[in-house]
C-alpha cells in the first residue's frame, strides 16, 4: 500500500510530508527531489523506481504530489487517489498553489489522516468529509450524539455521498450535457479518427433522499422498447437514437441495474457532481471542416490557405472559434488576410492564431497567409504539426438527447412535476486537428 505522501513546490521544497509505513525513510523525500524534480530532462514516466522505492507523481500547476511505496501496490488506485486528493483539496481551499498549501497545512494533514489510513484510501467524498472536517477547525466536538452517529454512518455507509435531512424550498435540477468532439483528419479530408467524449454534469438541489431515473436516446434502450412497444413509435425514435460505445458512472449509480436493464437509477449527491461519462464514435456531427492548403515556394516562402466550413443547422451559432496554424521555427514574417474575425501571428507560440467570435451554421470562411522564412542550413525538415481548432456549439455533436429525468421522493410530499429542471447542451472541441 501507499507508504507515504509528499507535496513539493516547484523548487522541490517539501510542503507536506506524511509517512504511513516504516519502510519509507526520510531520505525518500530527497530521492524524489533529486531524481525527478531536479532532473534536467523531461519526465519520461509518471512512475519512477529509485533505489527499490517506487514513486508515483502528478503535477498540479507547479505543485508536485508524490506517493511512495516499496510494495507491489495497485498503481491505478494510487493515481486515482492522487487525483482524488487534488479534488478534495480543491473543494476545501480552491486552487492548489504553494500559498494555499502552506496556509492550509494543518487541514491537509487532517485530511490525509482521514482519507488514507495506513496507506489504504478511505471514504474521500467531500460531501461526507465536510460534515466533520472544516477549514475553521473541527465541528464534531459540538455535535450531538445523533449527529455523531449520523456522520459515522454516512462516512461508512452505503450512501456515503449524501446526508439525510436535506431541505430546499424550491426543488431544482440543472443538467448539462457537455461534449468534447475529437477529430484527426488527413490533409485530403479523410477522417482518421473521431470520437466524442461526453459528460453529464448535474447540480441537484433536492430535498430528502430522492430516487432519480435518467433516460437518454441510447440505441440499445430504444431498440428494446421498439420491440415491445408499438412499432410505429420504435421506428420514429429509432432514427434519433445513438450508439454509445462505453460509459462510466458516478458511484451513486446502481451498476448492476445498468448492467441488467440498462437503466440509470441513483440517489444523487447534493450539489455539483458528474453523473456519467460516455464515448461515441458512430454518426458524429463534425461541426467544422478545416481545409488546409500549404505550398512551399522555394526555400524561403510558404503560402498557407485555410478554409473552415461550419456544418450544422444555419439557425445555430458557434462561438469562441479559434484556428491555430503552426508556422516553422525559422519564420521571419507573416502577412495575413482573413475574411472574418481577427488573425495574428504569435512568434512566441510559432503559430498563426485566427479568432472568430461567432459563426452561424452552413457558412464558410477563409484565411490566407504568406510566411517568409529565414534561410537555414538545418537539414531537418519542418515537422508540420497539425492545424488545430477550438470552438463551442450549442448542441451535442454525438446526437445525444435527454429523454427524461424522473425524481421520486416517497417520504416527502413533492412529486416529479414540482421539480424545476433545466437541460443544456454544449459541444466543445477536444483535440480537433487536421494534418496539413
Amino acid at each position, binding site marked *: *500500500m501507499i507508504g507515504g505522501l509528499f507535496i513539493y513546490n516547484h523548487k522541490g521544497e*517539501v510542503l*507536506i*510530508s506524511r*509517512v504511513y*509505513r516504516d*519502510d519509507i525513510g526520510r531520505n525518500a523525500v530527497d530521492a524524489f527531489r533529486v531524481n525527478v524534480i531536479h532532473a534536467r530532462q*523531461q519526465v*519520461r*514516466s*509518471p*512512475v519512477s*523506481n529509485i533505489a527499490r522505492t517506487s514513486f*508515483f507523481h*502528478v503535477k498540479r500547476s507547479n505543485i508536485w504530489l508524490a506517493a511512495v511505496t516499496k*510494495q*507491489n*501496490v*495497485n*498503481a*491505478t*488506485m494510487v*493515481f486515482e487517489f*492522487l*487525483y482524488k486528493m487534488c479534488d478534495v483539496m480543491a473543494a476545501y481551499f480552491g486552487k492548489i498553489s504553494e500559498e494555499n498549501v*502552506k496556509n492550509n*497545512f494543518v487541514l491537509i*494533514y487532517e485530511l490525509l*489522516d482521514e482519507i488514507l*489510513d495506513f496507506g*489504504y484510501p*478511505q*471514504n*474521500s*467524498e467531500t460531501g461526507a468529509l465536510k460534515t466533520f472536517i472544516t477549514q475553521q477547525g*473541527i465541528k464534531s*466536538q459540538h455535535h450531538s450524539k445523533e449527529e*455523531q*452517529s449520523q*456522520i459515522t*454512518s454516512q*462516512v*461508512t*455507509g*452505503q450512501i456515503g455521498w449524501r446526508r439525510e435531512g436535506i431541505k430546499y424550498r424550491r426543488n431544482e435540477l440543472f443538467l448539462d450535457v457537455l461534449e468534447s468532439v475529437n477529430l484527426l483528419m488527413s490533409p485530403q479530408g479523410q477522417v482518421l*479518427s473521431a470520437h466524442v467524449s461526453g459528460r453529464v454534469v448535474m447540480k441537484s438541489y433536492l430535498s430528502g433522499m430522492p430516487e432519480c431515473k435518467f433516460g437518454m436516446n441510447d440505441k440499445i434502450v430504444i431498440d428494446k422498447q421498439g420491440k415491445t412497444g408499438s412499432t410505429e413509435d420504435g421506428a420514429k425514435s429509432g432514427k434519433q437514437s445513438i450508439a454509445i460505445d*462505453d460509459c*462510466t*458512472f458516478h458511484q451513486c449509480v446502481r*451498476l*448492476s441495474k*445498468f*448492467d441488467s436493464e440498462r437503466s440509470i437509477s441513483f440517489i444523487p449527491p447534493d450539489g455539483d457532481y*458528474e453523473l*456519467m461519462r460516455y464515448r461515441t464514435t458512430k454518426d458524429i456531427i463534425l461541426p467544422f471542416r478545416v481545409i488546409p492548403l500549404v505550398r512551399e515556394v522555394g526555400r524561403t516562402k510558404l503560402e498557407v490557405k485555410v478554409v473552415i466550413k461550419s456544418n450544422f443547422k444555419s439557425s445555430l451559432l458557434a462561438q469562441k472559434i479559434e484556428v491555430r496554424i503552426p508556422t516553422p521555427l525559422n519564420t521571419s514574417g507573416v502577412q495575413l488576410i482573413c475574411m472574418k474575425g481577427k488573425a495574428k501571428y504569435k512568434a512566441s507560440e510559432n503559430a498563426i492564431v485566427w479568432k472568430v467570435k461567432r459563426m452561424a451554421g452552413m457558412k464558410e470562411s477563409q484565411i490566407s497567409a504568406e510566411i517568409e522564412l529565414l534561410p537555414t542550413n538545418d537539414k*531537418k*525538415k519542418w*515537422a508540420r504539426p497539425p492545424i488545430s481548432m477550438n470552438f463551442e456549439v450549442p448542441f451535442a455533436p454525438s446526437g445525444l438527447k435527454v429523454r427524461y429525468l424522473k425524481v421520486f421522493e416517497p417520504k416527502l410530499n413533492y412529486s416529479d412535476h414540482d421539480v424545476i429542471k433545466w437541460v443544456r447542451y454544449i459541444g466543445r472541441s477536444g*483535440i480537433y*486537428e487536421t494534418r496539413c
Partner: protein
Amino acid sequence: MMCDFLFSLVCTGEIFELKAELNSDKKEKKKEAVKKVIASMTVGKDVSALFPDVVNCMQTDNLELKKLVYLYLMNYAKSQPDMAIMAVNTFVKDCEDPNPLIRALAVRTMGCIRVDKITEYLCEPLRKCLKDEDPYVRKTAAVCVAKLHDINAQLVEDQGFLDTLKDLISDSNPMVVANAVAALSEIAESHPNSNLLDLNPQTINKLLTALNECTEWGQIFILDCLANYTPRDDRESQSICERVTPRLSHANSAVVLSAVKVLMKFMEMLPKDLDYYGTLLKKLAPPLVTLLSAEPELQYVALRNINLIVQRRPEILKHEMKVFFVKYNDPIYVKLEKLDIMIRLASQANIAQVLAELKEYATEVDVDFVRKAVRAIGRCAIKVEQSAERCVSTLLDLIQTKVNYVVQEAIVVIKDIFRKYPNKYESVIATLCENLDSLDEPEARAAMIWIVGEYAERIDNADELLESFLEGFHDESTQVQLQLLTAIVKLFLKKPTETQELVQQVLSLATQDSDNPDLRDRGYIYWRLLSTDPVAAKEVVLAEKPLISEETDLIEPTLLEELICHIGTLASVYHKPPSAFVEGSRGVQHKRLPGSAGSGESVESPDTGSAAGVSEAPPAVIPSQGDLLGDLLNLDLTPPTTTGPPPPASSGMQMGAMDLLGGGLDSLMGTGFGAPPAAMPASFNVPVSGGLDDLFDLGGGVGMPMGVFNPPKTVWLPAMKAKGLEISGTFVRRAGVIQMEMTLTNKAMSVMTDFAIQFNRNSFGLAPAGPLQVLTPLSPNQSIEAALPLSTVGPVMKMEPLNNLQVAVKNNIDVFYFSCQYPISMLFAEDGKMERQVFLATWKDIPNDNESQFQIKDCHLNSDAASNKLQGSNIFTIAKRTVEGQDMLYQSMKLTNGIWVLAELRVQAGNPNYTISLKCRAPEVSQCVFQNYEMVLKN
C-alpha cells in the same frame, strides 16, 4: 504571510521560544506553537527535543490540538520510546470516549506509534474497538490489526485478532468488510503458506454482495482479493464473472482495471466454445478503450496493462487500432506505449493505416519517439508479409530525409527485413551504401557492415567499403569489430582472389592487436578454419541462418501469466514480477493463471525446487512444464494422496496432469511422452527422458512399444451441445488393436444410462468391434472412462478430411452427434516394414505425379531420434544415407487396408526444417500422413 513565517522557522534559539509557548496557559498560543512544531517537522528539522512539552498538550478537549499532537507523536515516538509511554493513558481513555470519531482517532493513531512497549497496551482497546457498535470505529480497528501485525506479528496471532478480523468479513457494513479484506490480504501476503484468507464459495458470496455497496476504494480491495481465488469449476467461474462485469462501468479506473484482472483470470477456466466466453470478450474492449480518455498518468498505467492483455488475448482489442493512434499533445510516455501496442495489433487488415501513421510519427520532434516509430515500421514488415514491400519503400523515403538518427534506425531494421525475406529487397542496397558516412552509432554501423558482408557478391566495391571501416578498427565498439571481422571473412569466402590481403589484415588486427577476448577468439577460430579446411569454413560462416521470429520482444509466457494476475499493480507497470522490486517476503509468491497452473500452489513444491535451474533456462517452454515434471517425479516416489478435482482445461498439458492423477499408468506413459514440448533444447532432454525412462521401467509390464505418441484427449462433444453429456477422447493403438478411449462426464442434473455408440461410414472402414461398455448409470458430476476397441472392416465412404469420423452417441436422454479426427498412424500396421529391394522397386514403380513434398518446420531432433520416435507409430526406417551432411531416411508404412506409403525424410544437421517426400499409389492419403509426421515429431 504568517505561514511563510511558520515555514521559515529555523535555528536552535527558537526551540526555547517554542518550549515557552507550548507551556503557555493560553490555548490559542499553545495551538499556534504546536502548528509551528509540525511545520518544522515537515521541512525536515529535528524538533524531537520538544517531545515532553508537546505530549503535555495532548490532554485537551480541543480535537484540533489533539490531532496535531498525535501527528507529532507518530513521527517521533520511535526515537523516544520511553517518553511515548506517557501518551498511552490518554489513548486508552480516548478509546472509551462516547464520541465514535474520537474512539476511532485514538485507535488509528495508536497503531501508528510503532513502539513495542505501546503495543501491549493497545491490545485491549483494539479488541473492544473491533467489536464497537459504530461501524466507523470497526473499520478503523480492522486496519489497525494490519498495523499491529506489521510491528509484532506474533502478538496479533496470540491475541486472536486474526479470527476477529475474519469475522468482520461477515460484517453488516460494507466498508468494514472492505477494510477487513484489505487487512487480511496484506497479512496473508507476508505468510504465503497460511490459509488465512481461506476463500470459499460462502465468503466469496459475501464479498460479492459487499462489492455492490461499498466505496470505490473498498471495491478495489475486494476485487484485488477476489483475483486470488481459484473457482472450483467453470460454472462458479462464470457466475463470479457475471457479478463482476457491472464494475466495468465504474468511473474509477482502478475499479475497472481490477475487475478486468478478475475477468482475465477467471476467463481462463471458461470453455472457449461457451457463448458467455464470447460475450465476455466483447464486454472487455469498451472499458479498456475508455481508460485511454483518463488523465495521462492513468493512461500510462492502462497502456502498460493493455500491452499485457493484448499479448495474452489479442482478439479483445483487434478492432480498436485507431484509439491507439498517437495524439500530438500526448506526453512522451503515453506516445511510446501507444506505439508499442499499435505494432502488436498490426495485421493485414489494418496495416495500411498503421503505416501511414508511423510515417507521420517518424517526422516528429522527440528523438526516442521517432526512433521507435522507424523501428516499428521494420517490425510491421516482419510481422505482416504483405506489407513488407510498402514498409521497405517507406523506410527508403525516410532515409532520403537524411536525418541522421532516422537513417541509422532505418538501416538497423532493414537488416532484419533482409534476414526475414532473403533475396527480395536487395535492390535497395545501393541506396543504403550512399549513407555509409553518416552512420556514427555502433548498432547502425554493425548493421550496415553485416549487410555489406552478407551481400558481398552483389556489391561491386564491397572490399573498398569494408576496408574503409577497417582504418579505425581499434576505435570501433566491440559490436562493430566483431561484425567487421565476420563480414570480411564472408567477403573472402565469396571473392577469395581480390581480398586475401584484407582478410589477413583484419585477422591480425583481431588476434594480435586486440585485448578483447571475444574478438580474439573469434579471430583465431576463423583463422584456423580458413587455414585448415576452407570448405568447412564456408559451411560454417555462410551457413543458412535460422529464421527470425515475427513477434519481437514478446514477454516470456510464464512471466506474462504472472503479470496478468497482477493487472493494475506496479508489477504490470514495470512488466516485472513483484519479487524483482519488492523486498522481503512479500511478493515472493508467484501467481499463476488458473487454467494452466494445475492445482495452484504446487508451484512451490520442493521437487521443482531441485529442478529449478532446468525449468528456468529455456525461454520458450510451455509454462507448467516444471510442474508436470515435478508431478511426474512425485508420482514416481509416492502415489498422490489428495486429488482435488482439477479445473477443466482444454490444453493438452492439463489433460496430461488429469490422467496422471485419475487414470491408470498406461495413460500416464502416453501423455508423459507427449508432454515435453518441441521447443525444448537438447540439454533439457537428458534429465527428462531419464525421469521418464524410470517411469517406463515401472510400467514395462504393459508391453507397449517405446515412444508411442498418443494425442492427448480433447473435448469432442461439449456438455452445452449434448444436454450435459461431455465426451472427450483420443485414439490409441495397442498391440495392433485400435481403441477409442473416451471420458464421459455427466454435467447435467439427472442420471444418465443406456449408452450406445455408432459410427457413420468412413474412409477406412472403422467400426466399433463391440458395444460401448458403460454398465453403471452415470450420476451427475461423475466421469467414467470407456475404451472402445475398433475394427477396420466396416462400410467405407470417403470423408473430407480423410481421417474424419462421424459418431453418434445415444443415452436415455437423446442421441447426440459429433465428429472427430483420428491420427492416421492408428491405421499403420505393425508389419509395415518393407524389404529394401521391394522399397526401391516400389519407389521407382510409383509414378512421379504421385509424389508430394512437404516441409516440417522447427523440429530439433537429429535423424536417429526422429527415426526412433517414428518407429513407435509404426513408421519404419528401412535405410539411412548421408550425403553432404544431409541425412536421408527411407521409410515405409502400411495402412490397415493394405495401402503402402513410402517416404524419404531429409534431415540436415543444424537446420530445424525437414523435407519429406511421400510416394503412394493413393496420393490422397499423403496429406494425412504428413500431418501425422508433424504431430509425432513435434511431440
